[in-house]
């Protein structure tokens, strides 16, 4: 009886020591997973997920607070990538969170008053201008997040969908759906 107790306590103590030592040695600083999730997100910094940017959303996902289907600019493709990375199940988009066509902002120069409110709102500094000077969007850098539309006091910013031309044309999926006989 006593020997049994000794054996079990001995094993427990030994294992406890090993685990304690390795807990200190293998301490994980921060959460490198957040960077991995952030690398998958589309970086539009639009806030449609409900978080103020892509890094905060990545942090929330890593902490298990946010679902992976909250990012419309990433599309279904993005949800799949997150599901694969995290080993979670794929969830489709909720109501009203469907992705829109990619577009860039455009400032109507006849209406712009040079107030710089849109410049302060742009999360990637894609608007060039200064106080009382003409503002213009650098369309190559614009991510289409639409954060500049709300602050503009004269409503001169509109979103233009990116047209398909010969440089960004993609081959179509070669499957033709079969229609039911009439």
């Amino acid at each position: 009886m006593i020997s049994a107790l000794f054996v079990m306590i001995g094993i427990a103590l030994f294992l406890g020591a090993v685990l304690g030592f390795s807990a200190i040695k293998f301490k994980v600083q921060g959460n490198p997973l957040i960077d991995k999730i952030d690398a998958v997100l589309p970086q539009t910094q639009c806030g449609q997920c409900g978080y103020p940017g892509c890094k905060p959303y990545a942090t929330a996902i890593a902490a298990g607070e946010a679902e992976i289907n909250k990012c419309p600019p990433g599309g279904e493709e993005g949800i799949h990538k997150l599901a694969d990375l995290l080993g979670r199940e794929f969830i489709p988009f909720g109501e009203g969170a469907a992705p829109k066509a990619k577009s860039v902002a455009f400032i109507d120069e006849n209406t712009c008053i040079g107030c710089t409110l849109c410049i302060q709102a742009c999360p990637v500094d894609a608007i060039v201008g200064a106080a009382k000077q003409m503002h213009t969007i650098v369309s190559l850098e614009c991510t289409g997040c639409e954060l500049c539309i709300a602050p503009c006091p004269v409503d001169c910013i509109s979103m233009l969908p990116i047209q398909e031309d010969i440089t960004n044309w993609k081959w179509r999926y070669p499957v033709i759906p079969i229609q039911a006989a009439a």
Partner: protein
Amino acid sequence: MTEYLLIIVSTVFVNNIVMVKILGLCPFMGVSKKLEAAVGMGAATTFVLTLGSGASYLIQHYLLGSDLAYLTTLSFIVVIAGIVQFTEMAVQKTSPALYQVLGIYLPLITTNCAVLGIPLLNVQAKHNFMESLLFGFGGAIGFTMVMIMFAGIRERLEGADVPGIFKGSAIAMVTAGLMSLSFMGFSGLVK
């Protein structure tokens, strides 16, 4: 020397723990959707099994003896749990992505019937230390090999024209059954 080779061949092919002994099906079905996850799981299980077999032999042979034999299962589980915890910490440190992907299946190695089964089989077969170690290592290699094969097949099954009713787990089970059938071909290889 041939003894050890025979042990390896028999545990990897003839008496494969997953396909023939039908042990350790939980991670086999759960982690085999992606090849990288399967490889990671196989590596973790190999580490745990080899260490676990060795440690279990030492405890069973030196500490427990014959009068404390009733503590075998209990002490084995405790040792395995400790090793799995250690493995979990190591995986989290070295590969956080793998840690996230394996998820709950990493601590579930503790309750993996193969990981407990191999040491118990060692006791039953009265293997010495080297034989126990090799039995555990061979068993784990067999487990890893079958997991990787199955993960490869499942990745192809993802894109294949599987009838709707069979999609997902159903066709995976059928495939596992067919694989198990094919491993029957090894019976009689080792006399």
